[in-house]
């Protein structure tokens, strides 16, 4: 069998070879399975199921109602599974609610036809702010074992490289490390203590899935360097001033839409200028 035949067969049977939209769902599913089997990060499947079904169901219904089309569900699946992993609550309703809010936000919070908040980020932050008595965010570690963490990081980097988002994750990580140093210097706390959070799964999901989301990241290359740096900078402020445990989520919640609005407006203005120039 020639190499060409093998590639053709892979393309035919494995969606990842033909459609990049399936890379994230497959990767996040693998992380979930590995984490559950080895560390039991889920306390029960009903909560995960509630998050996934609510997310996909909302996408189907709103997609049909608003656009008149049946939407591809891979993005909703990733959102649902992210909520299922990230949210922690003894009740089921927060999982479903966070998923529904996540998907609905895509259809409601739009600027010039584009949604500007990262949906999962919006869902998680909304629940943290509005239902803090009932929810928290993922707190488990990969056994605090550096080798497991290393494997996840390497796999994550391969995936974001595959979807051409490596630079976004890399800038964020480098910025986080830089700002950890500054935080340590300002607060007088040990540097290792300030760096510690980025070694956890919450940050891994954040770095690989949230800040790299194609729909809610700016399209220009320079913007993709500036925005993760800005997120890390705002995160530092939130940590130092407000002692926010979930500072990265809040930082993306603030920086993400601002960046999107600026870029959309800038492009719109350029387009209008171009039209005007062409007309004259």
């Amino acid at each position, binding site marked *: 069998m020639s190499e060409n035949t093998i590639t053709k067969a892979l393309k035919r049977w494995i969606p990842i070879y033909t459609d990049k939209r399936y890379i994230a769902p497959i990767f996040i599913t693998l992380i979930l399975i590995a984490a559950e089997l080895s*560390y*039991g*990060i889920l*306390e*029960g499947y009903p909560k995960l199921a509630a998050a996934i079904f609510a997310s996909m169901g909302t996408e189907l219904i*709103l997609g049909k*109602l*608003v656009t008149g089309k049946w939407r591809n569900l891979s993005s909703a699946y990733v959102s649902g599974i992210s909520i299922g992993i990230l949210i*922690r*609550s*003894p*009740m089921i309703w*927060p999982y479903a*609610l966070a998923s*529904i*809010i996540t998907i*609905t*936000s895509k*259809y*409601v919070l739009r600027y010039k036809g584009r949604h500007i908040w990262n949906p999962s980020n919006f869902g998680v932050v*909304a*629940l*943290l702010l*509005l*239902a*803090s*008595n*009932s*929810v*928290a965010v993922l*707190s*488990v*570690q990969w*056994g*605090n*074992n*550096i080798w497991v*963490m290393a494997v996840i990081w390497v796999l994550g980097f391969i995936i974001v490289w595959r979807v051409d988002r490596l630079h976004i994750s890399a800038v964020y990580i480098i910025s986080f490390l830089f700002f950890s140093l500054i935080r340590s210097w300002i*607060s*007088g*706390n*040990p540097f*290792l*203590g*300030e*760096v*510690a*959070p980025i*070694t*956890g799964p*919450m940050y891994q999901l954040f770095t690989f899935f949230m800040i790299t989301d194609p729909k809610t990241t700016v399209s220009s290359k320079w913007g993709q360097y500036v925005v993760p740096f800005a997120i890390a900078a705002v995160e530092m402020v939130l*940590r130092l001033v*407000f*002692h*926010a*445990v979930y500072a990265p989520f809040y930082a993306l919640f603030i920086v993400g839409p601002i960046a999107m609005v600026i870029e959309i407006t800038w492009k719109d203005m350029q387009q209008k200028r171009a039209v005007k120039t062409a007309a004259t």
Partner: protein
Amino acid sequence: MKNDRVKKILLAVFFVALLSFPVIRTMWLKRKADKISKEKHSQILKRYGFYLQDVAKKVGINFTHHPPKLDPKVNNIMPIIADMGASVAVGDFNQDGYPDIYLTNSAIGTKNALYENLGNGKFKDIASQLGVAALNNQNGTSMGAVWGDYDNDGYPDLFVYKWGKSMLFHNDKGKGFTNVSKDIPLPKWMNANTAIWFDYNNDGRLDLFVGGYYKSNINLWHLKNTKIMPNSFEYAKNGGRNYLFENMGNGKFKDVTKQVGLMGHRWTLAASAADLNHNGYTDLVLANDYGVDEVFINEKGKYFKNIGPTSRIGFAPKSGMNVTFGDALNQGNLDIYISNISQPGILIQGNNLWVPQLGREQNQLTYHNLAEDLGIELGGWSWGAQFGDFNDDGHLDLYVANGYVSGKKKGGNNSYWYDYSKVAVGNHTIINDAKNWPKMNGKSLSGYERNKIWLNNGSGGFEEVGKAVGGKQVYDSRAVALADLWNTGALDIIVANQNGPVMVYKNTVAPGRHWIGFKLIGTQSNRSAIGAEATLFWNHHIQKQVVTGGNGFCSENQRRLFYGLGKNAKIDSLVINWPSGQYQVIRHPSVDQYHKITEPK
């Protein structure tokens, strides 16, 4: 176009409704709780069937716990390390029929207390007089105590476990105590935070399990370095060693830990024992901080096999603080309640109620966590917990102690949670060294939390009633023990608070509700009947209870078994399964009294 606008408006309304739901729900729940908390005692009695009043000082119990002051090398997080030692052990040391109370203190130079129940409603501290007060010195300070009649002479002896050299005292027929620590091969130093008495090999003699927390070679008053913390928040195995001491019957004990497979090095905070798989031998459940809990199945008194992961109790790592048994659903089962940590918006581990699955087979014991379904999952930074029927309605209620460190500063930016959450996710080299932990500087960590009193409604749900019935203290509570202190047919609650006063909650139950109590006396089994299971059948109800020699976090309830029965109670029978293997059936015992039942010879 118009159609599009309508769609957009409807979508926006839907979105606002979604965002409003959690806010409205929280407001509604708060309003409901506030309304009930303003009710008078008579209304509360009518609504819930009981109320609590702190009577500690009134009855002569004036005891304040003082935490240890450890090596200044760990001053940055001293409140986190010197965080335990407030304990309560109920035992009738003089066998006069009234439960007495032993309380521990933890600063060098402070005294423990033995409050004798005088039977007239008052208590008197006679620890100094009987030689069990001045135990906190350079050889370590007290973390807890358990009563157990190891020589079967009818008087419970006292084991005091310490960060240091633990001590065993023989009870000289209620007149005094003799230090017999030389008869038990205790290590020169261990940082023990739990101990229980149980007869692991059914030879009729009580054996002693002692669980370690910090590593045994660490003297927290004189540290060699600051690498004393767990090496993982989830799978730490650098804790203290556990011990099982077998009672040889001649007043001596033998260390059989390795032989029976209990050589753990997890951070054990609580142990409880009961025959979970009905093979006639008492099994052991350990709640471990920074890791998974363990369920050790006793294989005929020869060996213990950990089935934690397969039973699901020991699968997901949490912060196990407490183990207690109770038939929460009146199904004739011993459910297991393990407390953990929950901080709204930051960390929600949730407490667990492990209910055995139906259709189980021996050695294939599996459990389901029903804490969430029953509404008893969110405690706080939870420590001790006890099941008991507070309103005598025939269903076991639950008291959970909460609160970790109440610093000088309360919440917001004065909470240490932010700092704690940073370190907690770091890898082992970061966590392990106390010097990497940010300074506490008087901050609180889950401080000023209220204890929870969950009332069992008998139909698969619990309601939190602490604010309404009393007992709404905000000290950093640790240990909880239940006892009918005045033999009135109501379970009173004793709460030991870290760095705070002990609280004694006298329970007043609504009239017309019945109860029954049993004091079991072993003959072939150990005399304290520890390990005996008693199942009561009445009015189409069934409830199983077990006699324990220490239960919960650093606590011990009264040895007598107490059952609330509700109104118009008619008892069919009590079935006792003695550790010796004997079954005994007591038909139609009278209600509203205690019965003394001796094991047939």
